[in-house]
């Protein structure tokens, strides 16, 4: 994991807590979620909120590895953890892929999709986080936890 820590407060209450670039592997996912969990623990973020963030980051990174990088470990994923000027937790995951269209995603709660073995990641992220934004055609996801 290439760590580029830029800890400390910015000029407008914005604080960057983690900024890493990692190879697109499942091992990297565990490293990044572990690092974020440690930071959130030190920030005294409540357990339930830490769990929800951990799972949302897991899903975002898994999507980046599987879909953004097609499992190609030579490709790189970027992940940043910030707090914004209101103190909200913000996580950004960027991959080098072409992105996707939100309207192409199926609703996993529909009866015909209940027994499907994939297609729940983005749905879960949107349930777990307070605000989710996709940029760069879907290859960058930004997630807020209030």
């Amino acid at each position, binding site marked *: 994991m290439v760590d580029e820590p830029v800890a400390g407060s910015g000029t407008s209450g914005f604080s960057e807590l983690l900024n890493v670039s990692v190879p697109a592997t*499942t*091992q990297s*996912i*565990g490293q990044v979620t572990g690092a974020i969990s440690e930071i959130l623990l030190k920030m005294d973020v409540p357990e339930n909120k830490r*769990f929800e963030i*951990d*799972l949302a980051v*897991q*899903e975002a990174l*898994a999507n980046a*590895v*599987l879909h953004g990088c097609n499992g190609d470990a030579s490709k790189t994923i970027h992940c940043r953890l910030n707090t914004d000027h209101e103190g909200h937790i913000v996580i950004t995951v960027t991959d080098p892929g072409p992105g996707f269209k939100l309207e192409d995603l199926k609703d*996993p*709660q529909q009866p015909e999709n*209940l*027994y*499907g*073995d*994939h*297609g*729940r*990641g983005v*749905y*879960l992220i949107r*349930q*777990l986080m307070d605000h989710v934004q996709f940029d760069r055609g879907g290859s960058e996801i930004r997630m807020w936890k209030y």
Partner: protein
Amino acid sequence: MDINVRKRAQAQLIQLRGPLRMGPAVDGLRQTMEEALGNGDTRLVINLAEVPMIDSSGIGLLVRFLASAKQRGGSIKLVQPSKFAVQTLRLVGVLNLFEIFDNDDAAAESFA
């Protein structure tokens, strides 16, 4: 993740320890369940008491094999899922697909 399999008369008991997420954990459980179904063991009890979290790939694995087991006359029953596992299964609408029990014996005996 640790995966411990025990054979009972009524069912195969699969005890998991650790997060069930994409990577070796999901791959290991997939292999375990493929072997069970391949051997004709379609009645599976999965103990989740020591599984602190399940991601979407873990959920996908559970529901896919639940469907396979049911098609062959069996099922997958869950034991003591953690509160976060329950919360996640509920969020994606699959919690009600599973029967949930307080202990392995009750889950295994429910197959009798």
